């Protein structure tokens, strides 16, 4: 009896910025799943497509690298998967090497290194449209003959641009079916190339290119023109600041309409359920627990998407590397690596991917410093808290003749104070504990490219899915727990206060209140901070639930922001904002730090440090506000 063979597996390998992910998207469309590799936190992207001849093919997108000589944990994954060393990952049946056709001199060295492995290999000359525009003529038949591997031109961003690759994959599958595919558990032999080997590869690339380049391209002249402005010490930094400022303004302005729509929809749903369900515990659970709780988190989806839209566009356009270049020296002033910019910017979305992105920093001291301040970059989970309090307390006025909105300005100030305190903490750490030389900066500045709607959309889709999944699972479960704690035990007969005061939640809030009274927090806030440990944005949901349970009648009708505006003083609101700039309570951040640094001491130190900073900042803010206002 013959064993049924699984789908053939392809691995996409290439330098950073070669358009590998665009090619992956072109092959698989939305049939992809993003997960982590077992045991490590490197993102694993796998997709599925059906070849023209009707074979189902699995394809994985490996992290970009210049050599199998891995320099970071990301690149180690690429090396180990390609060599069949990775536990739980079978040796791929073939490698598709994705090369930027406009930069072959730099890309082909890795092809030679991969060829030595003796794997089936296909060279995809990507971005052929751009190469043609530059007047670059490549004799791909000659290139194929010299390299001894099939060469196909691709334009990942164009419809039908991967047809030649698909046909080649079919031809390879025919051969593989005749000869048998790589057996499960096979490994490849490889030794780390010396500088001598690398020079040999380089010379061989030059020899091959001298035969295969028919007409040399004109170079990326447009990129050079743009860089004259964007990398200029003065205009470049000004533009970078403007971009960041616009990003935070847009998070407010663009997201306002969809957020209002979600709010209205939730209101309508609550109203309808109020009519449809009989009074009782079930109705309270659905309306006050689930919809008030989960709904108050889901409403922030538009803002998170706007933030990720900016990050994705900056990444895809090639600007992110410029930002790292512009900031390297300034960040060096506090002892950070220019490459720390990318983890830190990602931390504005969420500290967890940010801390994982710090893996590209190889030096441990540099990396620890970056990781320790990553949580000080205001993550999107804190946006709900900021938005809520700003909506409740900051009047929606415009300044400078309508150009700058006051809420946006306050938001910018909150982000700025996070960044400044992060830089201060880094400076202190680097001058006392983590002394030593910085890791070298060696980074390609890729040509500017217009981000493609499809790639950006697929990236945003992944984020939205992750956020909603979280809202539907973790946050949903927490909300049910909070609702339970807020409703049991039931108030005694003849109780005069709102029911929640007699519940477990009320007791817990009261118990914590003395601890946070000096910084102006009431028992509702104290209570909200507890489940906020699991996910910061839950704090808003909890406030939503608590106030939904403790208010009644008219107050319930108005939004949570309205309720808070009436029940908190301004000093309390400012104090909570200051607390959230540092917001130490996030279990996923602490656990990822533990995993990434393989240490319990650093996350413990991080928790103590951030709590002390948060408490201190909130205390000072509260007292100052009380005195001055």
């Amino acid at each position: 009896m013959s064993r049924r063979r699984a789908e053939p597996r392809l691995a996409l390998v290439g330098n950073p910025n070669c358009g590998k992910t665009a090619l992956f998207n072109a092959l698989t469309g939305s049939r992809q799943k993003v997960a982590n590799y077992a045991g490590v936190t490197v993102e694993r992207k796998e997709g599925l497509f059906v070849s023209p001849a009707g074979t189902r093919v699995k394809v994985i997108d490996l992290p970009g690298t210049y050599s199998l000589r891995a320099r970071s944990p990301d690149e180690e994954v690429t090396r180990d998967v390609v060599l069949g060393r990775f536990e739980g990952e079978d040796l791929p049946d073939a490698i598709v090497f994705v090369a930027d056709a406009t930069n072959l001199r730099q890309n082909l060295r890795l092809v030679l290194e991969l060829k030595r492995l003796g794997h089936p290999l296909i060279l995809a000359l990507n971005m052929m449209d751009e190469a043609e525009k530059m007047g670059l003529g490549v004799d791909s038949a000659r290139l194929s003959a010299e390299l001894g591997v099939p060469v196909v031109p691709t334009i990942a961003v164009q419809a039908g641009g991967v047809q030649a690759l698909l046909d080649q994959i079919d031809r390879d599958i025919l051969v593989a079916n005749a000869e048998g595919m790589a057996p499960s558990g096979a490994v490849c032999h490889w030794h780390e190339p010396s500088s001598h080997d690398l020079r040999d590869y380089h010379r061989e690339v030059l020899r091959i290119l001298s035969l295969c380049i028919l007409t040399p391209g004109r170079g990326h002249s447009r990129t050079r023109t743009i860089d004259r402005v964007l990398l200029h010490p003065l205009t470049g930094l000004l533009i970078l600041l403007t971009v960041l400022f616009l990003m935070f303004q847009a998070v407010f302005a663009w997201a306002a309409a969809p957020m209002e729509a979600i709010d209205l929809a939730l209101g309508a749903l609550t109203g309808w359920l109020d009519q449809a369900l009989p009074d009782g515990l079930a109705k309270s659970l659905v309306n006050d627990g689930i919809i008030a709780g989960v709904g108050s988190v889901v409403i922030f989806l538009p803002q998170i998407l706007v933030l990720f839209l900016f990050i994705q566009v900056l990444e895809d356009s090639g600007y992110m590397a410029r930002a790292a270049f512009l900031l390297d020296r300034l960040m060096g002033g506090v002892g950070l690596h220019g490459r720390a910019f990318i983890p830190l910017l990602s931390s504005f979305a969420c500290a967890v991917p940010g801390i994982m992105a710090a893996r590209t920093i190889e030096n441990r001291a540099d990396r620890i410093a970056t990781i320790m301040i990553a949580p000080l970059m205001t993550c999107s989970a804190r946006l709900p808290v900021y938005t809520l309090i700003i909506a409740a307390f900051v009047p929606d006025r415009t300044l400078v003749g309508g150009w700058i909105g006051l809420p946006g300005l306050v938001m910018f100030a909150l982000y700025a104070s996070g960044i400044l305190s992060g830089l201060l903490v880094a400076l202190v750490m680097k001058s006392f504990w983590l002394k030593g030389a910085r890791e070298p900066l060696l980074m390609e500045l890729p040509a500017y490219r217009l981000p493609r709607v499809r790639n950006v959309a697929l990236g945003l889709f992944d984020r939205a899915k992750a956020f909603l999944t979280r809202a539907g699972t973790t946050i949903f479960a927490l909300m049910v727990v909070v609702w339970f704690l807020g409703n049991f035990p039931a108030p005694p007969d003849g109780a005069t206060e709102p029911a929640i005061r007699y519940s477990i939640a009320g007791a817990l809030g009261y118990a914590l209140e003395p601890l946070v009274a000096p910084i102006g927090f009431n028992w509702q806030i104290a209570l909200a901070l507890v489940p906020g440990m699991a996910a910061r944005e839950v704090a808003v949901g909890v406030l939503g639930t608590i106030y939904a349970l403790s208010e009644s009648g008219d107050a319930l009708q108005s939004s949570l922001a309205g309720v808070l505006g009436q029940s908190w003083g301004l000093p309390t609101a400012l104090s909570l904002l200051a607390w959230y700039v540092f917001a130490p309570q996030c279990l996923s951040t602490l656990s990822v730090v533990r995993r990434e640094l393989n240490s319990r001491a650093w996350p413990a130190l991080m928790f103590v440090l951030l709590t002390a900073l948060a408490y201190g900042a909130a205390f000072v803010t509260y007292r100052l506000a009380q005195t001055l206002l």
Partner: protein
Amino acid sequence: MVEGLTVSLGRLGKGQKAEVVGLDELGVVSTLQAGELERRLIEMGLVEGAHLEVLHEGFPGRDPIAVRVDDHTVALRRAEAAAVLVRLPKVAV
């Protein structure tokens, strides 16, 4: 005419062009193991025969630098650029 001078890439200013004649990482203080910086430089295309042009300088201290290496652009700090020995083009006297 005089032969082009050999200097390190770390000392070039904006707009200067040169050709790589050798790599020498001794004397560069770095967190890397011996031989690692050299290999990384080669992997970024900074290898004997490559044609360079300093395109941009960072701020402050004119560091790091963005260097055109044949067809692509690489950003690096002057400290590590010191390991790249280059020959300046011949100049008419």
